């Protein structure tokens, strides 16, 4: 990994330039029906404690049994991160007392994770790219949730999330500024979504990040003391927290102080981080191999089979869009950002008679515009991919003009879909492509305006007036190019 050689922002200060060093631990909730070690549902938003098995509640004598789908998801993710998949890994117990952890320990992987080193390539502004190393990925149990607002004197606990599988994806300290950090999480989330291993929904907590930040003077090679900012659930907040934290650390050092290794929390209202606990207060988790579980072992054939079924990932897709469809790198990146967008675009672009660049323009401009305005996800789009495809085909075959198409699209959006052909007829915007109809109108116009015909022969700019008149007589439904060409012929200009 040569991230330090990659271009990045240095922070300038009175005493010189500072470099920020960032590493991230992303917790991604595995997409699976059942929990990591129990058959309970992982569905979001159930009544408190409605998705809790005897194992999740840590009843006496209960034992964990690994959910193989979660293992497959972790392997898929490892493959998607171009990482080493370990055929043998070990589950450990991380011991701590808290009411959201009924066992009194979290089953995690400590010394032998299921996935080892890998990498994620980020594309930055200006076409530069930087590779961020992945240190490891391991499987672990999520915790439950404490409810403090149910009673004035007691706290309650909801164990629905307890035992849901998480992948902790640990990066190397290769990230150098807030922009890269945001790009890293964005890219990672995109990869997970393509793989279908995590829905990436940060609002629901399906993706959270702990951000380790340290600073050092430009040119130094040893790492500074780091602070860990816990539980970030928004990409923008990650950016803000890093900016704040880096400046805070630089100020302390420049004032002659030193950084205390500690865990901090970001307060989005104040835009600052504050101390949560110091290194001295850190837990001793007393990790040891979980004696209830045998080491997790699978064959290379198992990995190879999952590899063969891996979907196309954003990087591959992007180069396909550039090379096969002729899109600009920018448009291609926009379209590959989420698998739902890419799928939508591909259906439109592959529609009979549709030009891929036109498809890209319509998806990025018209469709995104409407989605943003209505606050909708692409999968809830009121115009479906095949409907947009058939609208664009109507343009390509000169059935309607581009401006009429926008009208039709408006109606389709308002009505929540609909067959473009039917709407074109209903609005009466089908273009007149019958030359004889156009010819009749041209002939009549010229007969009625002989002096203008004469003027036009000397002054070809007059053509615009003629085109306008003919279009008016045809109710705007003619193809203006056709009208223009036929007029030129008639007027001999």
């Amino acid at each position, binding site marked *: 990994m040569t991230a330090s050689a990659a271009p990045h922002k240095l922070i300038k200060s009175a005493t010189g330039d500072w470099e920020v060093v960032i590493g991230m631990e992303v917790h991604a909730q595995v997409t699976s029906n059942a929990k990591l070690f129990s058959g309970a549902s992982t569905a979001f938003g159930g009544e408190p404690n409605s998705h809790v098995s*005897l194992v999740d509640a840590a009843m006496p004598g209960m034992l964990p*049994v690994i959910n193989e789908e979660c293992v497959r998801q972790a392997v898929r993710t490892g493959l998607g991160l171009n990482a080493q998949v370990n055929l043998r890994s070990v589950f450990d117990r991380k011991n701590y007392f808290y009411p959201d952890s009924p066992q009194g320990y979290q089953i995690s992987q400590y010394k032998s994770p299921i996935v080892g080193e890998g990498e994620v390539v980020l594309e930055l502004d200006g076409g530069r790219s930087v590779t961020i190393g992945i240190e490891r990925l391991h499987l672990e149990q999520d915790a439950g949730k404490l409810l403090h607002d149910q009673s004035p004197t007691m706290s309650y606990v909801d164990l629905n999330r307890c035992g849901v599988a998480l992948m902790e994806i640990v990066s190397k300290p290769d990230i150098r500024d807030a922009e890269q950090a945001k790009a890293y999480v964005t890219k990672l989330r995109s990869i997970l979504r393509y793989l279908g291993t995590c829905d990436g929904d940060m609002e629901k907590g399906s993706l959270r990040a702990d951000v380790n930040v340290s600073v050092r003077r430009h040119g130094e090679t040893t790492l500074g003391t780091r602070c860990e900012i816990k539980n970030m659930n928004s990409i923008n907040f990650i950016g803000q927290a890093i900016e704040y934290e880096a400046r805070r650390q630089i100020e302390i050092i420049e004032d002659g102080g030193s950084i205390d290794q500690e865990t901090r929390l970001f307060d989005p209202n104040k835009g600052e981080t504050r101390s949560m606990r110091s290194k001295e207060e850190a837990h001793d988790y007393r*990790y*040891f191999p979980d004696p*209830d579980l045998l080491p997790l072992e699978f064959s290379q054939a198992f990995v190879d089979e999952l590899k063969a079924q891996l979907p196309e990932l954003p990087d591959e897709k992007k180069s396909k869009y550039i090379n096969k469809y002729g899109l600009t790198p920018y448009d291609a990146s926009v379209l590959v950002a989420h698998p739902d967008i890419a799928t939508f675009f591909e259906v439109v672009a592959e529609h009979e008679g549709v030009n891929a660049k036109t498809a890209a323009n319509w998806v990025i401009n018209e469709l995104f515009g409407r989605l943003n305005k209505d606050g909708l996800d692409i999968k809830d789009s009121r115009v479906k991919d095949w409907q947009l495809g058939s609208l664009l085909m109507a343009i390509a075959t000169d059935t309607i003009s581009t401006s009429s198409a926008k009208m039709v699209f408006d109606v389709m959006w308002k009505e929540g879909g609909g067959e473009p052909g039917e709407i074109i007829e209903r609005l009466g915007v089908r273009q007149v492509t019958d030359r004889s109809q156009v010819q009749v109108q041209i002939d009549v116009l010229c007969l009625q305006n002989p002096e203008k015909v004469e003027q036009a022969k000397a002054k070809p700019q007059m053509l615009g007036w003629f085109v306008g008149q003919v279009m008016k007589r045809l109710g705007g439904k003619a193809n203006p190019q056709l009208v223009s060409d036929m007029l030129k012929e008639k007027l001999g200009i």
Partner: protein
Amino acid sequence: MTDLTSLTIAEAREGLASKSFTARELTDAHLAAIEAARVLNAYVLETPDRAREMAKAADEKIAKGEGGPLAGIPLGIKDLFATRDIRTTACSKILGNFIPPYESTVTSQLWRDGAVLLGKLNNDEFAMGSSNETSCFGPVTNPWRREGSNTTLVPGGSSGGSASAVAALLCMGATATDTGGSIRQPAAFTATVGIKPTYGRCSRWGIVAFASSLDQAGPIARTTRDAAILMRSMAGHDPKDTTSVDIAVPDYEAAIGKSVKGMKIGIPKEYRLDGMPAEIEKLWSEGAQWLKAAGAELVEVSLPHTKYALPAYYIVAPAEASSNLARYDGVRYGLREPAKNIIEMYENSRADGFGDEVRRRVLIGTYVLSAGYYDAYYLRAQKVRTLIKKDFEDCFAKGVHAILTPATPSAAFGIGEKGGADPVEMYLNDIFTVTVNMAGLPGIAVPAGKDTQGLPLGLQLIGRPFDEETLFSLGEVIEQAAGRFPAPKWW
């Protein structure tokens, strides 16, 4: 009717089949015996209604010719096994009145085969102890007494209730668990047969965990045949316990009476302890001679890492226990002591809910897993464990079929006699048995004789992995040679 309680399972099975008596009569006889023997404190919960209901069901099935292998056989269940809708406490105050909504796999298999539940049996709290004195329900009394003495003796532990109940004819057999000797030591102290099967042979699902990598369920019965009958129902693969092994369960009873001719029996020199009572030494060589007389060949073997087994065990077992017992926090079930905040609630509930020995082991376990100590203690103990395992593997690789050792370094001792000042004194009870748990091997304790004070002594046979059958065959030889030792009734 009192006669019925003194039958073996095999005899009762025949009597039921030939309609000499009913399951209901058999159960009632045991319920009456239990009532009359409350002084022993073997049962912590009697379930007469459930017992009669199950016996009635068994009679109906027997009448239809559909009785299972244990139809109508009344059993006691160690309170470590979760029994659906029946209080299960592991004999700890911290579980209070815990009533599980589930049945352990092992007991569910016994009920599947027609057995009858008489009640829950006393044990050391969370199975931590070698005398059944750490139970929150108080100590169990051994039905055996020294000749001419009224001193109450311990039945051993942790399955003291199981051993005492079986010896005192308060059930025909009992479930037990063994983490470091908790089946075999009480069996030896009460002249009963107890087998700890190979790790993975019985499902641990639904058994309150002590040390997960060592815990294994097994039966205590009055004869090797009865133990074999119970084993067949208790054993088997369970998808709910990933450490249980998917190997077919043999007909263990068929091994009873099978010739042991030509078998190589290892006599480990490291088990000859300094200061070991001469009567134990004598019993051991007598046992060896019986096996030899039956056609087996005796060979001296070496298990060089034996001396490290006990210290390593007392690192591994508490380490796992400290983590396994973390779930008893007063949040979801069991004892909750009032407190101002969550930390105080943990502290008060656990301080009040756990007894001294449990607290001691939780502390030891927490210590050995702590940062800076892990490598020196836990990791090193695991390495020792690997070496102990290898000792046995080397031995078996030389063609040894089973290893014969004493089961305990002494006979039963008095209540309150040991471990008061130094817990290690109590821990030494397991010196011959812990190695077997550390190696995951099967081990059986069989009554073999009496000491000079008339107390029973047992011998232990250690087998190859999943070869419990050989242990039953050899155990039967010892049983035949030594005869059976019924406890004199005084209560």
